[in-house]
């Protein structure tokens, strides 16, 4: 019996050991051990020109559009150190099998990431395959692989390039969505009237939105992108107007009387604006349909340009002239806890960052006779009140507005001799002009 029992006991021990191992393997998880001070460097990224995958003659034009737009999007992202094309190997890959890792992951390109792919037109449709490879990791290099199909038009290829760029930015940028498909709304008087226009984030596809034939100012897009609020002058004076992108027409919004200016959407869709219905311009809040009006300030000084904390929706920054020159104040969304943010000069046009930490605004720090101050953009950390100047010696700059990713700021500048829309990274670098026709002002970036 003891002879027959031993193998059974051994078998049971082995089974128990195997079970323990299995449980251990199942509960095991990957650990990352890392820390600060290791250098917060930008990702070194190469974007090889996409190759033609079919023999269609129209491929060349679409490839040119795609490669240009993709490069521009990645360059504008602000998180990449884009490797110059002059460092690239002569053989550019169109397929994963074409990649020569050592040619990319060592100098001169010495890149960490490589975006590549191919494009081809077949039966009127364009098919695009794109990959993102970690070329320093030859064992499992693929980070991203995407395929897109659409009509073989430059506009469709432009959209595909934006989407592929946004995918790359989303993966490598810590889960922050790219802005390549975002829109910018602005006021343009190129038709002779101040109307609201819209364009892509890079200045392409400029389209007229309103055709009111009067003066329309301060356009603000709703968080879901379906409605656009702005102030416009009509027979009754300045009123808040509303445009629906779902219906592609103006929709009704209550008339409040007095002068109603500078609407602003909260993350929940409420609208704050300045109204002088009671005599003095004060900040009011209404719900999305214009009802439930509530007055937040009740002083004599003109209070204008409210902007919501886009992260929490629980605070409002605004401009007030209650002490003389306009200064920036913050308050809770119910009007309590009023705090003055700027201490001197002439500060206007506040805009709250998507993460709720920063305010950007236009500030003339030295104002008055004998103090020729310049109208520049500033950024302030709300918690610490520390600020940094973003524009320097470049004409009058005003109406800054954050991008949805919190990495860019669009603004109006007179540096080219006429008011135009410009964009820059939130540290003041990479300044680019977006509009060139007519005079353009008061930009507002979509929420996503």
């Amino acid at each position: 019996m003891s002879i027959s029992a031993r193998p059974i006991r051994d078998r049971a021990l082995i089974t128990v050991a195997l079970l323990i191992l299995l449980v251990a393997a199942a509960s095991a998880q990957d650990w990352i051990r890392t820390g600060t001070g290791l250098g917060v460097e930008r990702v070194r990224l190469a974007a090889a020109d996409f190759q033609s995958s079919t023999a269609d003659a129209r491929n060349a034009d679409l490839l040119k559009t795609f490669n240009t737009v993709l490069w521009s999007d990645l360059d504008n992202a602000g998180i990449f150190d884009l490797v110059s094309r002059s460092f690239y190997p002569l053989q550019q890959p169109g397929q994963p099998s074409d990649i020569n890792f050592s040619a990319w992951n060592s100098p001169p390109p010495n890149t960490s990431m490589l975006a590549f792919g191919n494009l081809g037109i077949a039966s009127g449709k364009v098919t695009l395959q794109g990959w993102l490879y970690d070329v320093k990791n030859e064992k499992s290099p693929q980070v991203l692989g995407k395929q897109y199909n659409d009509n073989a038009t430059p506009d469709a290829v432009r959209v595909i390039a934006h989407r592929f760029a946004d995918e790359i930015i989303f993966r490598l940028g810590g889960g922050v969505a790219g802005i390549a498909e975002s829109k910018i709304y602005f006021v343009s008087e190129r038709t002779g009237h101040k109307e609201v226009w819209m364009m892509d984030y890079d200045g392409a596809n400029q389209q007229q939105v309103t055709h009111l034939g009067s003066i329309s100012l301060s356009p603000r897009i709703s968080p879901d992108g379906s409605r656009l609020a702005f102030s416009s002058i009509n027979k009754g004076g300045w009123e808040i107007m509303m445009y629906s992108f779902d219906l592609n027409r103006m929709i009704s919004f209550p008339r409040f009387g007095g002068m109603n200016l500078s609407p602003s959407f909260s993350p929940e869709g409420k609208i704050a604006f300045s109204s002088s219905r009671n005599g003095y311009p004060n900040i009011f809040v209404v719900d999305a349909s214009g009802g439930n009006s509530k007055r937040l300030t009740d002083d004599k000084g003109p209070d204008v340009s409210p902007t919501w904390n886009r992260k929490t929706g629980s605070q409002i920054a605004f401009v007030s002239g209650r002490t003389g020159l306009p200064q920036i104040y913050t308050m809770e969304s119910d009007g309590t806890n009023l705090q003055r943010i700027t201490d001197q000069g002439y500060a206007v046009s506040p805009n709250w960052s998507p993460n709720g930490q920063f305010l950007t605004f236009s500030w003339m720090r030295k104002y008055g006779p004998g103090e020729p101050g310049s109208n520049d953009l500033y950024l302030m950390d709300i918690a610490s009140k520390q600020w940094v100047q973003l524009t320097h010696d470049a004409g009058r700059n005003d109406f800054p507005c954050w991008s949805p990713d919190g990495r860019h700021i669009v603004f109006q500048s007179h540096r080219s001799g006429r008011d135009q829309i410009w964009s820059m990274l939130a540290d003041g670098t990479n300044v680019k002009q977006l509009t060139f026709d007519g005079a353009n002002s008061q930009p507002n970036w979509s929420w996503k």
Partner: protein
Amino acid sequence: MYADNIYSEHGQLRRPLAWSLGLHVAFAAFVVLYSVFVNGIRGSGWGSGGGGDAMGATLVSAVPLPANPTETTNVVATESKGLAKSQPTVQEKEPEAIPIPDKNTKTRIKPAPVKTATERRPQPEQPQSNQIPYGEGGPVNGPYTMSAGGAKGGFGFTGSGGDFGSRYSWYVQAVQRKVTENWLKYEVDPRITEASRVYLTFDIGRDGHASNIQIEQPSNVPSLNQSALRALQRIDTFGPLPPDYSGSKVSVEFWFDFKR
């Protein structure tokens, strides 16, 4: 009657006319005699005498100029300072005048400064400007107050069940970048210049959200522990885990070094 009076004065003018004539004659005689005697003593007058010989002139270029004392290979310009360099004039300093002692001036003894209680009090510090110089604001998406100066660290991966760190090093770097960007160093007590390292652990789920944020080993500075915790709490997402990763979550051990 009036005419008679006029004509009757004829006889009275005769004497002055005689005096006038005599004096004029005497003055003329003096002038003649003066010219004769005085000029005779002085010799020849203006314009008299011979013209003399013509003076010879020679061209300056014929005069041998002094040679350049230093030879140089510089063909562009001479390095010689030239012989005609003007010497700087030495300014002679005038001796200070000794003041004349005034009998009436009283010498006043200055009292030694006595420190008062108000002076001994610490003066209030000037409020520092909260401006951050342009270009020193930190990363584009980060807090504009951080600086990585003085911080040191290192990172490694241990895979008890997988090899996440080596397969997805781009994700690890994104995590590291994002935590560092969201760490606000001004939240640490301003009196602290150096602190021991604080270790935090947290999990990243498949959707990229951080959970189970805990201090594994605290620092000796409580405010550093708090700032590290807040950095993690401030982050909404690290981005979804790589789609081909089979695990449901990744555990991260993150340390914060602080040094001003």
